[in-house]
């Protein structure tokens, strides 16, 4: 018997009022089928995730895993330098982090700190390729377009609130260097564009993304939509039977309309934040991005990525002036991160919101690559440092890296993994690879690492080959 896809003939109105974006996506022909893992995992401990992305390679010895500090001196030998900042105490006696992160230090009792994250061995070091690997769990190239972790979560769990896009990406532009490479993983891939990122390159302009077009009053916006409905429903085609294509067009517009005219859209408007609160976050785009993330989590967002923005040779991509630039970068992230943790806690949301701060790999003054696999040096380090610009971590190091996490069911004041105290400061205990880190995030959300989506008749697992294993010891 020939069945038409015709789910809402009976009561379209009612359906439309209840259908969220997830329902809509699931109706898509060709949308891949989920293959649930046989066993069921532990219960979810989180509903939302905020990923704080330190794009460009954050040196762990300058941030969350301080080692021997050697202050700058003209003519100094670079080889003994492991950190260019002294270590500072945190509220947890057993955890020290780097100078410049005093506010984060004050909330370390809420943090789980992984020091043994080890980036994938992808040979030649290329930022966008490692970022692709971190965000999708797969190394490119692939025979199918791999989805971003945010898209997997959006596809699997749907939006928390139907009026708020499930996956929001804050702070990255796609008009600068390596833009094509960045676009390649900022996508839902084969899962379908419904689950792709809602892009907000500039947090302070976020409202524009959820407002009627520039120059259009809300009144006119509503009138336009009403007129659209009048015409669409009265057209000859409107009575021409029903099919999913037409219905999905209607529903997608209705969802957009609902978001753009709804109170939830106010969450995107940073100008509604009290001045005192805004100031605590306002260290620049990243800080405002953290504030926006908090507001969006309050409004019901599922997955948010806030990036310091990857631009070749800028921000964390320190090929020179590492020390000077890291002082600025830490100033930009320290306050907002701590405030984000405190604000979520105060609102009772930290328990169910996991914050993950990560970077594609770490950096070192001397070593390019990792001890077991060195690669060609990309930055020249002089035998004697005569200028400040050579003082810093300028080479790409993949042997260890730090991931800082808060909330979402994780322990507080917890350290995981150990790195060597002498160069190479590589992972020596409890190595964490991307598959396991993803499995840990998925585990918090109640998603099995063995969950797969079917594409071209075969399973595509949310962690590579379904082999990611959550680090259970991190959970409270």
């Amino acid at each position, binding site marked *: 018997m020939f069945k038409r*896809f015709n789910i809402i003939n009976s009561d379209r109105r009612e359906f439309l009022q209840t259908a969220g974006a997830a329902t809509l996506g699931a109706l898509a022909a060709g949308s891949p089928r989920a293959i649930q893992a046989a066993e069921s995992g532990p219960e979810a401990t989180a509903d939302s995730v905020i990923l704080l992305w330190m794009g460009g390679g954050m040196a762990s010895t300058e941030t969350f895993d301080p080692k021997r500090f050697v202050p700058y001196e003209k003519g100094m030998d670079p080889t003994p330098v492991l950190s260019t900042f002294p270590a500072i105490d945190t509220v947890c006696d057993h955890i020290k982090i780097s100078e410049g992160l005093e506010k984060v230090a004050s909330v370390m009792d809420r943090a789980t700190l992984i020091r043994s994250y080890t980036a994938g061995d992808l040979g030649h070091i290329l930022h966008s390729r490692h970022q692709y690997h971190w965000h999708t769990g797969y*190394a490119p190239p692939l025979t199918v377009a791999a989805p971003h972790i945010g898209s997997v979560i959006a596809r699997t769990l749907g939006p928390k609130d139907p009026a708020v896009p499930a996956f929001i990406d804050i702070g990255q532009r796609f008009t600068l260097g390596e833009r094509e490479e960045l676009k390649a993983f900022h996508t839902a891939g084969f899962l379908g564009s419904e689950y792709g990122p809602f892009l907000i390159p500039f947090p302070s302009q976020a409202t524009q*993304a959820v407002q009627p*077009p520039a120059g259009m009053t809300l009144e006119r916006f509503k009138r336009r939509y009403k007129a659209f409905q*009048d015409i669409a429903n009265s057209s000859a*085609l409107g009575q021409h039977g029903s099919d999913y294509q037409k219905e999905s067009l209607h529903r997608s517009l209705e969802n957009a309309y609902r*978001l753009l005219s709804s109170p939830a859209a106010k969450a995107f408007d940073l100008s509604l934040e009290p001045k005192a609160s805004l100031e605590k976050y306002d260290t620049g785009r990243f800080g405002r991005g953290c504030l926006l993330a908090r507001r969006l989590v309050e409004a019901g967002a599922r997955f948010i990525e806030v990036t310091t923005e990857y631009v070749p040779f800028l921000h964390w991509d320190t090929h020179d002036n590492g020390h000077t630039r890291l002082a600025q970068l830490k100033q930009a992230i320290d306050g907002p991160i701590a405030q984000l943790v405190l604000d979520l806690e105060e609102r009772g949301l930290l328990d169910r919101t996991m914050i993950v701060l990560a970077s594609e790999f770490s950096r070192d003054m001397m070593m390019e690559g990792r001890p077991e696999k060195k690669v060609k040096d990309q930055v020249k380090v002089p035998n004697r440092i005569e200028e400040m610009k050579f003082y810093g971590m300028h080479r790409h190091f993949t042997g260890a890296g730090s991931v800082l996490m808060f909330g979402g069911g994780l322990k507080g004041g917890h350290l995981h993994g150990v790195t060597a105290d002498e160069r190479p400061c590589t992972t020596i205990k409890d190595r964490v690879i991307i598959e396991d880190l993803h499995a840990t995030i998925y585990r918090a959300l109640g998603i099995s690492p063995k969950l797969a989506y079917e594409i071209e008749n075969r399973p595509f697992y949310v962690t590579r080959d379904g082999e990611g294993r959550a680090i259970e010891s991190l959970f409270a």
Partner: protein
Amino acid sequence: MQIPPFKTAFLLLLPLILHADEEVSFRRDIVPILTNSCVKCHSGAEPEGELDLTTKDGLLAGGVSGDAIITGQAEDSLVYQLAAGQDEDRIMPANGPRLTEAQLTLLKKWINSGATWDTGVVLKGLQQAALKPRRPALPASKHVNPIDRILSVYDQEHGINQPTTIDDTRFIRRAHLDLIGTLPTTEEVEAFLKSNDNNKRALLVNSLLERNKEYTEHWLTFWNDILRNAYIGTGYIDGGRKSITNWLYQALYNNTPYDQFAHELLNPTPESEGFVRGIVWRGVVNASQKREMQAAQNVSQVFLGTNLKCASCHDSYINHWKLSDAYGLAAIFANEPLEIHKCNKPIGEFATPKFIYSELGDINPEAPREERMKQLAELMINPNNGRFARTIVNRLWAHLMGRGIIEPIDDMDQPAWNQDLLDWLAVDLVDHNYDLKHTLKQIVTSQAYQREAVGAPAPDETDFVFHGPIVKRMTAEQFVDAVNAVTQTWADAPAIKLPPITAKDAEQKHDLKVTASWIWDKPDAKSKDTGGTVYFRHSFELTESFSKAVIAVTCDNGFRLYVNGYKLTESDDWSKPKVVDITKHLKHGKNTIAIHAYNFPDKVTGKGLNFSGANAAGLLASLAIERPVENSKESTWSEIKTDQHWKWKRETVKGWETVGFDDNEWQSAAVIGSLNAGPWNAAVGFQAALLAGTELSGHSFVRTSLLNDDVLTRALGRPNREQVITRRNNVATTLQAIELTNGDTLDDALKAGARYWLNQPMNNDNQLIQTIFLTGLSRQATQQEEKVALSLLAGGGTKEQGIEDILWILTMLPEFQLIY
């Protein structure tokens, strides 16, 4: 699961082995065994021994011999006992090779660990379609079109009685969008509806397929996706990728026969080698993604509709391909001996170059790479390779009809819903020298194509029955082109340089000769003009019907062109003539071309003021008008051109550019030289530009397929072309809708469109609304629609805002975005 301490220590010793204790995976380990060795017999309506091994329920239900397995006890399970050969009389599989020791171990482990079966998985027996071409007899039928003759039997079998045929309005819109990708213009619709020719649909199809430039720029999208040819993207950053745009554009434009098309991709020239070269990434790449493996996967998918991706890592469990098949095909493209890797680990063997359908012939493994690729190209187009033609006709059918005769379109081993139809279309393509336009014509002129469109079948649909084409969504490129048409706004320049083929081809098509002369106010202007503006006018009567009008203009130093009072273009670069399709601006009766021409220095425009002294000035314009010849496909071209009949004046007068203006007092122009007169010697470039322009037929804008992707086209599903994409996911999404509702790209186009329509001469608002509807939907607005639209024009804001809102509503309508 907490990692036990001993394991942590173990990990420290062997950091590269991350998860040592291998579990049995149902998907990875068991599905291939069941699929390859069991379900061929243990499936279907009457499974062998009444044991159905395609589902979990079937396995647990057992068969005539009782329980098939006892969960947790492999040694006591009949499946394992028989597979292990414990009963010599009943070794399973009964037909085919025994399970290997490794397979038996996996089976045992699986049963012992609980025989988990992923929810909902239903195994399919492996299908393998016939390779050879097959020529089915065409049944007797009242129909002429062979597709309809085949379907008349099919319809009868499925109780489909006299399916209805869509009307002319729907047909012209559907055919335009499917064949050349754009909306028909209002003039095209009107002419088509007016025609009483019984054969007019076939004639329309022919003429669309002959519009080479538009055809090319529409099908470029389809082939760019399939051949993953991007204009920018990953790989280009460091030379790890090569574009085939020039080659592809020319191949489509010239309608290169499909066998030759494939041959040129497989045994390529430097222009076409990008496809088999693939994308090379810096750094370490999985063995299955080496350049040669990419070539094997893409060649087999694109040309043969089969998937070698699984077999690139291990023997496939979704089809019959082995690791050695994938490596054999890949080795053809390899410069060095290609070592076989299983799951990214070398197995110590090297691949022998061979075609996956080795029954068609051999590849000489000793031959150099270029020779092997040539042999592959020959095997691909070998007449016995019926799969090659079936795959492409199935793609074309799917593209036009919304669903293939076989689905998925990349798995041509699946059963067809009508094998005769597929086989016949394939041999018909070969019979017609692999002319893809012939197949397109066969399909589009069939009654099957002209049936009412139906909704898409549900995703879980199993018994597909063909009722008619499935409603399709416009691609991103079609949508933006269509928005451009209703807003009269488009991109200035393509992102790619188009290969130089259009002018020459156009020249052969019609006998248009340009005989325009350079004119100015005085005969010595060729060298002795001292600058300033000259206003030129020329009026003419159009009494016969015309189908197309294209004007080319150039002026030293610059000009502004007005047609019947409307400014259409301007330029101050005489070396690049401006070409504009002005078909819709001309009318029956009197028309006027008015040109504000200037020479540097010119105080009126403020241009070239730093110039001084005498220099060359001249204006050259040629308007080509096409008139249909009655009862014929042919048409004739005539020229209206700059000559001594043009009038000029040095001072501006209000209304000088309008039709009604009286220019009796103006002076006659001076001819200062023929078309190729110096100092410009512009004949060749000018003629080529005009001839190319006449090819454009109402759509003289830069098509979206020639642009790089942007936020809007990405949101609408344009892929990044890193993988072969044979079908886009074209469902509407919320993110898309947000972009369509408040995105800058569309909003800017709508604003420009509103300004355009506001300035069009209309008798009243009703006429404005009707014209916009005709342009966008190829039909008049209904009374109700007109009423709503009028209320928008009168409501709250300005009239321009009202028009903008009407344009938004129109372009959001399913009727606009869907191809019915």
